């Protein structure tokens, strides 16, 4: 007898699909194992470790100066801010007071890094939702920042410009002029970002109400950065635990309460404006002074535990150092923002479509080396 129950006759089966490790939307070697029913996503399980280099283990044998350059390779889009985190933890542990000049320069470079990272993210976000041209426009603007980095630090991405105690060398004479040129240029380009993508009706439809993350979940999942701020959770480390020049600076923390993909998108766009304003307020007031304070050739941290958090472009990066008084840390843990943000992905996407997954994972702004470390 043929069953008459309609559910039986139209029974569907869930199936697995591998998104990654080689996939255009996962930006690196992230592998997501999707359980889907037709187009509806039932479960997402990340499979990590494709580029795990065990930086934490390597840190246990390296000196503190050497650790700095390893952090370049974690979240390479905010390399400078990662460097700063390690330098700050060493400086705090040694109770080293770095000159004002260093703090200001570090902050300017950190904000430039943030703009560069967000600009890249914007391009990739557009590409993920299908607007391929955004990528090139973002790269055009990023190129100017990379030139500033290259002229001053000598490298475009993995700069390693911070050292414990200050900077490796002073800023380039052209630095101020170049930054000003860039700011003037970028201010004319940023509105185009809105016209081209943000206001676009298709983009609005793709992002509004998609990938909802409530404030409670945002906190519980330990998300930080624009992801958490899109859910209305005020978590800007620069505001709550200020470091470097942020202690004296006045800036707005960008918050959105919608908690959806569009909110996270808007937070990042708005943060670019904020960063521009911050750089503008600092660039004319770089104090004179030394660019570093002398440290011993072999830095030994006092016995104890030290924690330093900074706000990278992706969120809160924590460096936890357990020192036993040696030249290398006994244990060093990087609390990377991407790792915690990724854990919220499942919560955000279940019930959505494959197209949503791409948009949502794009607003998480995942950098896989940051997750894998």
């Amino acid at each position: 007898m043929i069953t008459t129950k309609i559910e039986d006759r139209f029974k569907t089966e869930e199936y697995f699909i591998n998104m990654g490790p080689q996939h255009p939307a996962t930006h690196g070697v992230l592998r997501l194992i999707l359980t889907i029913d037709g187009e509806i996503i039932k479960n997402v399980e990340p499979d990590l470790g494709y580029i795990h280099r065990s930086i934490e283990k390597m840190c246990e044998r390296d000196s503190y100066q050497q650790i700095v350059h390893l952090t370049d390779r974690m979240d390479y889009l905010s390399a400078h801010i990662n460097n700063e985190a390690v330098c700050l933890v060493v400086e705090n542990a040694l109770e080293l007071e770095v000159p004002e000049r260093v703090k200001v320069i570090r902050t300017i470079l950190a904000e430039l890094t943030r703009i560069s990272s967000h600009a890249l993210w914007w391009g990739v976000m557009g590409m993920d939702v299908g607007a391929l041209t955004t990528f090139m426009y973002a790269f055009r603007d990023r190129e100017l920042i990379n030139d500033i980095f290259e002229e001053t630090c000598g490298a475009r991405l993995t700069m390693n410009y911070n050292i414990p105690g200050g900077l490796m060398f002073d800023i380039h004479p052209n630095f101020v002029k170049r930054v000003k040129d860039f700011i003037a240029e970028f201010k004319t380009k940023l509105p185009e970002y809105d016209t081209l993508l943000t206001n676009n009706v298709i983009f609005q439809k793709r992002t509004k109400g998609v990938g909802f993350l409530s404030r409670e979940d945002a906190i519980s999942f330990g998300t930080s950065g624009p992801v958490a701020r899109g859910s209305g959770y005020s978590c800007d480390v620069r505001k709550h635990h200020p470091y470097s020049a942020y202690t004296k600076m006045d800036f707005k923390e960008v918050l959105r309460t919608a908690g959806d993909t569009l909110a996270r998108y808007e937070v990042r766009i708005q943060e670019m404006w904020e960063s521009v304003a911050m750089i503008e307020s600092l660039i004319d007031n770089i104090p004179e002074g030394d660019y570093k304070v002398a440290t011993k050739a072999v830095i030994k941290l006092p016995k104890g535990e030290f924690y330093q958090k900074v706000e990278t472009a992706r969120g809160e990066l924590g460096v936890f150092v357990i020192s036993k008084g040696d030249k290398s840390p006994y244990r060093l843990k990087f609390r990377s923002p991407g790792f915690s943000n990724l854990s919220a992905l499942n919560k955000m996407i279940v019930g959505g479509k494959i197209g949503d997954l791409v948009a949502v994972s794009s607003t998480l702004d995942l950098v896989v080396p940051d997750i894998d470390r």
Partner: protein
Amino acid sequence: MSNQEIQENLTELNLGIVFSEEPAQYLTLTVPKENLHFLMSKLKLVRELSFDYLFCLTGVDWGLELGVVYHLESTTHRHNLVVKVMTSDRENPVFDSVQDIWQTANFHEMEVFDFFGIKFNNHPNLKRLFLPKDWTGYPLRKDYDDPINMIIK
């Protein structure tokens, strides 16, 4: 709430908590592993404490013991606390999972399991997160030895 008040508040619980005497950035305490989960749920749920943000979960090999360090912050009161838990059982270290209290612990505990071999009770999906399934040993332990892949300077 100030560190002093938190300390008094927690001592009242009678959980065998030992506060660290060394000067440190955050208030640090060590809790026996039997009382870990109870303490953690108290920390999250008691209104005056409400440590709702677990921002770092670190596995540490202390040489003799294996341990986990939890960094907590309250998003309402903006105070911090560091909770440590240790076990001297290196063969089969087990703690209670806190992933039902903070969902972020889900991934972080997997990471700790992966690198330190510390198991967590009641964890829904404890598995190797980064390393391949057939990996032997726990690389971030101090006694881990891999002469081929590790370059010792």
